[in-house]
C-alpha cells in the first residue's frame, strides 16, 4: 500500500512539473523553478499535512467526522494569516505569515478542546467545531472588510477556498519547516492512538493518557494546518476524505493509516491542483477554478456516504 501510494505520488509530482498554463511538457527554467516547482511542492506538502491531520484527529477524537476544516481549526488559521498579511506585518517580517497562521490554528484547537469539555468523542465536539468554524468565517469576513486595503474583501475566496496559483519559492520556504515538523510529530502518535482506541482507561494504563495524546495531536495539527493555510488558504475536505478512502483497505486501527494518509493526502491535493491547472487548457475557462471548489466537489459525496453508513 505504502509503496503503491509512493509511486502514485511520484507520478503526480512529475506531472505537476510538466503541466501548466504554458502547455504540457518541460517549460523554460523560470517557469519550471519559480512557478511550477513551488506550486507542486506546496500541493504535496499541504495535502500531506491535511491528510495526516485528518487521520490523527479522527483517531484522537474517535469521531469519523473530525477534520481540521470542519472543526474550524483551518478557519482560525486563515484568520491569523489574514491579520498578519493585510495589516502589513508579514510584509515587514515574512515569517510572521506562517507564525500567525500557526497562532490562529493553536488558538482554534485550544478553544475547541475547551468547548468540547470532557467528552471529546461525543457529538458535542462536532457541534463546537461547527460553531468555531462559523465564528472563524464571520471574523474572517469582518477582518477583510475592515482591512486597510479597500480591495481586501475581494480576496475572501482564497482564504475560504484556498489556491496554489502563482505561489513563490518564498511561500514554500516559509511553510515547509513547520509542516515537516508537525508531520514528524503526528506520525509518532500511532501507538498512542491505537491505545486510545481501546478506551481512555486502557490507554491510561498503557501509559498513554488521553489528555496528553489530544494535546500532542493539537500541537501537531496546529503546526501543519497553521503553516499550510497561511500560504495556500483554506483548503477543505482533504483531511476528512483521505482516512475514509484508506480504511476499507487498511482496517480501522488508527495507527495503521497515519503514514498512508500522509501520502494519500499529498496525492489527492496534487491531483486536485493538476485538475485546476488542466481545466483551463481543456475548456474555454477564463480562469482556474478555486482549489477548494475541486476538493469540496470531491469530498462532499464522501460526506454523504459516511452519513448513510452511520445511519445504517
Amino acid at each position: 500500500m505504502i509503496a503503491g501510494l509512493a509511486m502514485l505520488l511520484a507520478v503526480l509530482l512529475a506531472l505537476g512539473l510538466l503541466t501548466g498554463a504554458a502547455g504540457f511538457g518541460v517549460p523554460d527554467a523560470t517557469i519550471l523553478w519559480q512557478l511550477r516547482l513551488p506550486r507542486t511542492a506546496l500541493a504535496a506538502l499541504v495535502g500531506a499535512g491535511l491528510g495526516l491531520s485528518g487521520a490523527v484527529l479522527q483517531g484522537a477524537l474517535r469521531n469519523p467526522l473530525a477534520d481540521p476544516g470542519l472543526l474550524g481549526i483551518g478557519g482560525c488559521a486563515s484568520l491569523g494569516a489574514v491579520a498578519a498579511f493585510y495589516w502589513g506585518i508579514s510584509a515587514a517580517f515574512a515569517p510572521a505569515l506562517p507564525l500567525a497562521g500557526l497562532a490562529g490554528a493553536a488558538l482554534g484547537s485550544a478553544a475547541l478542546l475547551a468547548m468540547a469539555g470532557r467528552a471529546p468523542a461525543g457529538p458535542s465536539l462536532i457541534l463546537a467545531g461547527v460553531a468555531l468554524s462559523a465564528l472563524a468565517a464571520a471574523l474572517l469576513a469582518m477582518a477583510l472588510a475592515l482591512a486597510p486595503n479597500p480591495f481586501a474583501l475581494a480576496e475572501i475566496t482564497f482564504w475560504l477556498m484556498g489556491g496554489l496559483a502563482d505561489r513563490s519559492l518564498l511561500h514554500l520556504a516559509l511553510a515547509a519547516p513547520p509542516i515537516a515538523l508537525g508531520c514528524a510529530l503526528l506520525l509518532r502518535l500511532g501507538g498512542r492512538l491505537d491505545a486510545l482506541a481501546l478506551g481512555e482507561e486502557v490507554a491510561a494504563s498503557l501509559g498513554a493518557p488521553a489528555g496528553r495524546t489530544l494535546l500532542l495531536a493539537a500541537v501537531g495539527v496546529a503546526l501543519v494546518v497553521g503553516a499550510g493555510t497561511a500560504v495556500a488558504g483554506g483548503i477543505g475536505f482533504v483531511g476528512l476524505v483521505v482516512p475514509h478512502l484508506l480504511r476499507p483497505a487498511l482496517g480501522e486501527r488508527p495507527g495503521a493509516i497515519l503514514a498512508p494518509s500522509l501520502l494519500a493526502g499529498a496525492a489527492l491535493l496534487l491531483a486536485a491542483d493538476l485538475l485546476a491547472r488542466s481545466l483551463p487548457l481543456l475548456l474555454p475557462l477564463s480562469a482556474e477554478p478555486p482549489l477548494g471548489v475541486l476538493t469540496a466537489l470531491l469530498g462532499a459525496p464522501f460526506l454523504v456516504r459516511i452519513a448513510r453508513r452511520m445511519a445504517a
Partner: protein
Amino acid sequence: MRRVAAALLAALFLVTPYLVTPARAERVVSLNLCTDQYLVLLAPEQVAGLTMLARDPSLSVVAAAAARLPVVRADAEAVLALRPDLVLAAPWGAQATLAALERQGVRVVRSTLPRDFPAIRAETARLAALLGEPARGAALLARMDARLTAVPAGTHTSALWLAPRGYTQGPRSLEAAALRAAGLASAGQGRQLGLEALLAHPPALLVVARAPRYPSLATDLLTHPALAALPRRTVPPALLACGGPWTARAVSLLARP
C-alpha cells in the same frame, strides 16, 4: 471610441446652456473616488463631503487636499445631513442611496468615468461648467495637453499592462489609452493572465502600477520573483485609478526614454 467621444461632445453642447443657467451649487457631495478628484481640483470651496478613498495617496491625486476636507459614507441619511444641493456619483454603485437622495429632491449627477483622453476633455469641461468653474477646467486641460504634446515620437514597443490579480488591460481601457499616448503598443487583451501564461509569451515591456501601501494577494503577484527578469516600468496607481487630466502624468512617465 471616436464615435462615443463625438456623441459626448455633442451632448455637452446640447446640455451646457441648461447646466450654466441654474444657480451655482454651493454644497457639493461626491460619492465616488473619481468625482472626488474632479471636485477637489475644480471647486475645493464647494466640497461638503468626499469619500474616504479620496484621502488615500495610493488611489487619489488629491489625497493631501482631501485630508483637510470633510468625508462622508455613501449613506442617504449621512449625505442628507450635509444638506447638499448637488451630489456627484458614478453610473454604478450605491444606486439605492442615490435613488433615495433623488426622492428627497437632491440633484444627483452621474459622471461618465472617462476611459480615454477625448472623453477626459469632455468630462472635465462638463463638470467644470456644472460647478461654475469653466476657467479652472480649461486650465487643467491646457496643462494636460501640454504634457501630451511633449511626448516624443513613439517606438511602438509591445507593452503589457499587468494589473493586480494578474488581469491585463484590454484595448479600450484607460491604461491602453495611456500606453498609446506614450507611443507604446498595448499588448493586453483584458483577460486574467496567470504568471505562467504571461511568461510563455513575454512582452517586451511590463508596465505595472506600483503596489499600493497596503499588501494584498492581488498586488503581491506583481512582485513575484518569476517576473524579475522582464523589463518593467512602474506608474503610481493613483494616476490611473480614475481617468482625468492627471492621467497625462502617467503618459509622461511611460514615454520617458
